[in-house]
């Protein structure tokens, strides 16, 4: 007889979703991943708005990723208007993106994954059962946020990073303050991989087909995507390479890239050779047998490698900004013109694409956003089915908790994923 195991709501992930496992006796017939976040319709809301309003509105897609959404939108609008920003602006954007990665990865690792490793229910139990570890994790997260708030003027939905430049250049004292804070958390960033190297006790999963921006490109100006098998395609041609379809049971779309089911995020980036500084490269060397050519169970430790990289990179960026002295930010004025611009960035959770078209008055006529979680949705569904089949006959509570742990490996951001592109 048929039965259904339902996990609703998914917990310790951003946004709303559920999973249904359809059984025929003990045999797993199918698994449905439903991202049930309410439709937000940003792509439709942006049509008719001025180019100047687009980045301020679209960052509201998701709070966890608001910085990278804003930066990607700025890059896409600037591309459409044919504008290039100053080196100070570029470095400042890179710094806030780096802070965003520290915040996002440390939130995921220390607040959402750590309870699984210690067999606790969540943040509340961590505070009681593992207060020191939580405190250290939160200290790292706090510095990521401090970077975002100092540079962005506001922690979530930053305002100081703007079209053509900066509201106000980040001052020397503020940068020196951030440097001290970063140095204080460096030891924990360097040691994080030891905590998260423990693989979740799940059976082996399919090896992902990785997608990321070309790791050789300069920061925040990637023009090419790279894939596991050596193939590549240009950012401007993403529409031709990425095919999406709407699923009846989910508010997010399913994506295929050049006919394959892609995986994006920390594990994908490290598999494709993301550049690392000396310390992060050393850590990567220690744990690479869990990452290179491996399945998503290695994504948390990959995030720990990136956490260290982001902390060290932030220090380098601060030094470079200090070297540039304290003159004006070199803002560029923007004038409306017709055109289309597409930009892609590596968000903490993976590849993010924004694309906008404007008429000659600078009014938005079309908006497209492809998020990491919508790119990952196909792989997540595939892995869920593989896992459920691999655990056929297991007790339903054990199966449910394993499926939830698998979903957490992907670090999904469901608010993001339901912002879908035009068909």
């Amino acid at each position, binding site marked *: 007889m048929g039965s259904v195991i339902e996990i609703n709501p998914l917990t310790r992930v951003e946004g709303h979703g559920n999973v249904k496992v359809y059984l025929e006796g003990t045999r797993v017939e199918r698994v449905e991943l439903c991202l*049930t976040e309410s439709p937000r*319709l940003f792509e*439709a809301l942006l049509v008719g708005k001025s180019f100047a309003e687009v980045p301020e509105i679209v960052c509201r897609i998701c709070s966890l990723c608001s910085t990278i959404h804003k930066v990607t939108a700025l890059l896409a609008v600037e591309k459409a208007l044919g504008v290039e920003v100053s080196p100070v602006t570029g470095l400042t954007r890179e710094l806030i993106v780096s802070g965003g990665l520290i915040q996002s990865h440390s939130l995921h690792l220390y607040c959402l994954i750590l309870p699984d490793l210690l067999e606790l229910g*969540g943040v*509340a139990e961590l505070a009681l059962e593992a207060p020191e570890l939580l405190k250290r994790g*939160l200290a790292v997260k706090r510095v990521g946020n401090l970077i975002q708030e100092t540079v962005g003027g*506001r922690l979530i939905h930053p*305002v100081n990073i703007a079209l053509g430049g900066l509201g106000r250049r980040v001052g020397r004292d503020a940068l020196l303050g951030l440097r001290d804070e970063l140095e204080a958390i460096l030891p924990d960033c360097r040691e994080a991989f030891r905590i998260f190297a423990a693989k979740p006790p799940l059976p082996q999963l399919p090896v992902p087909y990785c997608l990321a921006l070309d790791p050789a490109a300069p920061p925040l100006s990637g023009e090419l995507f790279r894939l596991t098998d050596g193939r590549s395609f240009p950012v401007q041609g993403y529409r031709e390479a990425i095919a999406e379809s709407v699923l009846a049971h989910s508010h997010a779309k399913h994506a295929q890239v050049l006919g394959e089911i892609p995986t994006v995020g920390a594990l994908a980036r490290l598999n494709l050779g993301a550049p690392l500084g000396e310390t992060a490269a050393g850590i990567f060397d220690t744990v690479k047998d869990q990452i290179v050519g491996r399945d998503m169970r290695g994504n948390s430790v990959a995030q720990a490698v990136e956490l260290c990289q982001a902390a060290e990179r932030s220090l380098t960026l601060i030094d470079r900004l200090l070297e540039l002295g304290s003159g004006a930010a070199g803002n560029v004025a923007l004038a409306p013109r017709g055109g289309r611009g597409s930009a892609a960035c590596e968000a903490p959770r993976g590849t993010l694409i924004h694309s906008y078209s404007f008429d000659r008055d600078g009014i938005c006529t079309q908006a497209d956003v492809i998020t990491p979680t919508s790119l990952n949705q196909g792989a997540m569904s595939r892995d869920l089915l593989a896992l459920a089949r691999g655990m056929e006959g297991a007790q339903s509570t054990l199966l449910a908790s394993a499926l939830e742990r698998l979903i957490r490996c992907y670090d999904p951001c469901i608010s993001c994923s339901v912002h879908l592109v035009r068909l």
Partner: protein
Amino acid sequence: MTRPRLAIAGLTACSGCQLTLLNCEQELPEIARSFELVYFPMAQSGAPPEAVFDAALVEGAVSTPGDLATLFRLRHASRLLIAFGTCALFGGVAAMNNATARREDLMRTVYAEAQGGFDSFPPAPFRNFVSVDFSITGCPPEKTDLIALLAALKAGTLPPTPCYPVCTECRSRENLCLLLERNELCLGPIIQGGCNARCPATGIVCEGCRGPVREANVAQELELLLERGFGRKEIERRMSRFRPEWDYGQRH
């Protein structure tokens, strides 16, 4: 001492209000000790299905039957319902086109024919459906407002709400007035303060994320902006970013 039982949840939103709680890194351990975080799916597994609460902090607008069911459930299960953030209070960004576009058309733009499967209506604030005991404004809310609320809840009361515009704090910080001195479309005069004029302090206009201050002189702001050469359409578009319904004739 009993620990107040909390629910923290979201409807149609970006999770930014819930994230604001997780962003209180220095206070979070103390919060976890002082309160029972009974229902907080974003950071906590294993909530009992029939739980009741002393306070439910809920973010987001109401835009689907599922949202409405969650809102009713939390209203019934909680002694206090807190509208947490601008979307819960005013509809927020999801509602910005409520007055200018039909929901079906917006759905079709994004989901094409497949939209038939999803049930959705124009995003609306909580008070259209249920009674609300307290609210925190902002997109995102200020951490300090959240901490003040939690401290008051712990003491068995609710905090006072400020009612002065963004300009009050902006002037006291001695920022350059972006509206009068740089001729930019700043909404500071009619927007609820309490953010310490964050955005104007970095040279960026107030976009109005905290909603209207009590007794906002909307008509005069409109006249001033028109006088300074902004178009009526542009002004209305900007003002409806976080709240679709304004009385443009309101004077105090």
